């Protein structure tokens, strides 16, 4: 356990003061519900762009991608260069004209305009539940981490973090959340950049990291470059640490899951909807794509470094759990023992003893890879900055969920089904109440997660089933005018059921029947959990796509004049003459895609 110095607390207090100050400063500009929920559609593109990427830069990103970096190596970059950038380009160029141009105030509201009330209700209810529970899971992870690393009280940690998020959203609504997300973006980037620098310096640069991970790869039965080359070993699931082959990766992650999240999730789309013009809304995800494609170096490399740095190379003595499992001295690496660096073993919560897998090897707690590297390299002062950056990632993720929740609740559920036709001031007040309720439910969900971990695993599983088919509905709705409301609804339900059935009939290798799958009988097994997730998504998307087309062909479509502004072919193409040629969405998209191809080639 690490004790912080006064300077570390001073950094945190400074951050909290500015975060709350932004909320207080923005409050005087909030007069209407549109100001509160949509920032009055008055934010410039560079701000919404950074908020777009920051709302996604939650704990799952910083901690989770570091963990994946330690577990899978540079192949984790597929979550960015395959699983994010193409979808961000697509929504900027092709989908934003419908979201922004239709003047819909939320993604569920677009579904209502394009299809019908029941499709909107299905999406709004599932989304509202998912956002508050996601926020709670994030809060739980934060409280647990701070308790483990610093010995802070779980209750106090989550109450303070949730209280600060509540205060600044309650005061300034979406504008406050977006401004704070931009601050959090810079804090996370500038807080983690020195970590990567120090880590690489300690292992002898990129070439040193490659050499050390080559030993780790061979010790685990892979080719030497399996942890440092992203594509070379994707030909077969058994030749790479991810356990997925290229087709499952490209279709499952790169197409279904990626497009389903980036192109339909209101949490991120809401940031673009707050932009001050159609061109700014289209540029938002494209501007976000620039930092996004460089994030692997910021969040994945720490995980890879944590696996191979020497426990004695940092500013603090190695934790007992680390030194007992670590085999990172050059001698031990060359001896072929699997390297653990400063990544500690996963402990049995009941006995406190390290967990071991079926082969008897110690199971590492990869989620601690990035936090351990922070404690390892950062002295007092910078440690405060690093931990504040970590806190910021939790808070930006939570704020994104809460602002999306209050909007969907107020516009898509309360105004539509509970009290339509009330004065605008009433909905503004309801938005603030929904913020309070959203944070309260998040805190409750965090305690549910702390008490019944399997329930949260189960909920996340259900969320995945609901999300997987969504992009098929939006793609058909936006680009095929024949798609009907009955078809969209039926397709979504069928896709979700197909995901549940596929998951229930399959199991990742080595997993027990239950929340990991196989509950309907094990028909097939996958080399890894990721492979199962990707293929479940492919099945869900394909089912939704086919069912939506078939039902559309036998139900009556809406008249074309009712679909203007909502469907491709019936909507005028946006003209971006207000900005210079190099700032236009098409130019940005070409540059983003070209750099992404280069990055894939460099790390091939």
């Amino acid at each position, binding site marked *: 356990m690490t004790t912080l110095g006064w300077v570390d607390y001073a950094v945190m207090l400074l951050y909290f003061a500015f975060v709350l100050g*932004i909320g207080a400063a923005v409050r005087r500009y909030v007069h209407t519900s549109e100001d509160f929920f949509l920032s009055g559609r*008055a934010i410039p593109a560079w701000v919404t762009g950074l908020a777009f990427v920051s709302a996604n830069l939650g704990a799952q990103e910083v901690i989770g991608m570091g963990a994946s970096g330690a577990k899978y190596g540079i192949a984790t970059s597929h979550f960015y260069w395959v699983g994010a950038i193409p979808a961000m380009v697509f929504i900027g160029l092709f989908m934003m004209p419908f979201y922004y141009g239709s003047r819909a105030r939320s993604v569920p509201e677009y579904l209502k305009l394009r299809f019908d009330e029941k499709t909107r209700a299905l999406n709004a209810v599932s989304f509202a539940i998912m956002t508050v529970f996601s926020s709670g899971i994030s809060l739980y992870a934060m409280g647990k981490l701070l308790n483990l690393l610093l010995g802070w009280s779980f209750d106090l940690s989550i109450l303070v973090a949730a209280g600060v998020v509540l205060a600044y959203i309650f005061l300034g609504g979406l504008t406050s959340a977006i401004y704070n997300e931009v601050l959090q973006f810079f804090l996370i980037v500038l807080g983690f950049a020195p970590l990567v620098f120090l880590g690489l310096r300690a292992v002898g640069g990129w070439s040193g990291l490659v050499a050390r991970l080559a030993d780790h790869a061979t010790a685990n039965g892979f080719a030497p470059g399996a942890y440092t080359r992203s594509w070379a070993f994707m030909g077969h699931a058994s030749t790479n640490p991810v356990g997925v082959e290229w087709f499952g990766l490209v279709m499952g992650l790169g197409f279904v899951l990626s497009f389903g999240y980036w192109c339909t999730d209101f949490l991120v789309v809401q940031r673009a909807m707050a932009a001050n013009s159609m061109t700014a809304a289209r540029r938002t995800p494209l501007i976000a794509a620039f930092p996004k494609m460089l994030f692997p170096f910021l969040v994945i490399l720490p995980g890879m470094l944590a696996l191979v740095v020497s426990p004695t190379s940092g500013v603090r003595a190695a934790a007992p759990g680390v030194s007992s499992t670590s085999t990172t001295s050059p001698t031990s690496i060359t001896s072929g023992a699997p390297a653990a660096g400063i990544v500690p073993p996963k402990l049995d919560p009941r006995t406190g003893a390290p967990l071991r897998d079926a082969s008897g090897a110690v199971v590492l707690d990869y989620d601690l890879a990035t936090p351990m590297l922070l404690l390892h390299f950062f002295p007092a002062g910078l440690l405060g900055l690093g931990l504040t950056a970590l806190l910021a990632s939790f808070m930006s993720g939570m704020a994104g969920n809460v602002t999306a929740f209050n909007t969907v609740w107020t516009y898509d559920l309360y105004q539509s089904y509970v009290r339509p036709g009330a004065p605008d001031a009433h909905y503004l007040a309801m938005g603030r109440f929904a913020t309070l309720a959203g944070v309260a439910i998040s805190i409750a969900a965090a305690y549910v997660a702390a008490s019944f971990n399997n329930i949260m695993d189960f909920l996340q599983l259900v969320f995945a089933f609901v999300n997987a088919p969504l992009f098929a509905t939006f793609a058909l709705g936006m680009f095929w005018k024949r798609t009907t409301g009955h078809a969209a609804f039926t397709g979504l339900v069928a896709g979700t059921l197909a995901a549940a059935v596929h998951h229930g009939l399959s199991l990742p290798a080595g997993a027990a029947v239950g929340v990991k799958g196989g509950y309907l009988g094990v028909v097939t097994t996958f080399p890894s959990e990721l492979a199962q997730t990707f293929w479940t998504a492919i099945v869900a998307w394909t089912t939704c796509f086919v069912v939506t087309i078939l039902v559309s062909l036998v139900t009556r479509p809406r008249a074309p004049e009712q679909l203007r502004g909502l469907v491709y072919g019936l909507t005028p193409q946006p003209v971006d003459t207000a900005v210079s040629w190099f700032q236009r969405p098409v130019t940005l998209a070409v540059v983003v895609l070209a750099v992404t191809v280069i990055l894939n080639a460099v790390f091939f």
Partner: protein
Amino acid sequence: MSLDVRLPIGGFFSLLGLLLTGYGWATLGTPGTAPAGVPIDLVWGAALFVFGVAMLALARRARKPSNP
């Protein structure tokens, strides 16, 4: 737009940079303050300060009325 977001960002990083630079300077040479041989509080604090001042300068430039 209601508030130029570069103002609070610039203010935050300027103060943060000053704090870290001052702390790094005061603890220079103390064991455990220079990972991988780099007095990181001092160096990174200065970098953060420069970034903060640059953001403030950009915000100030944007507030200036343009010449007729």
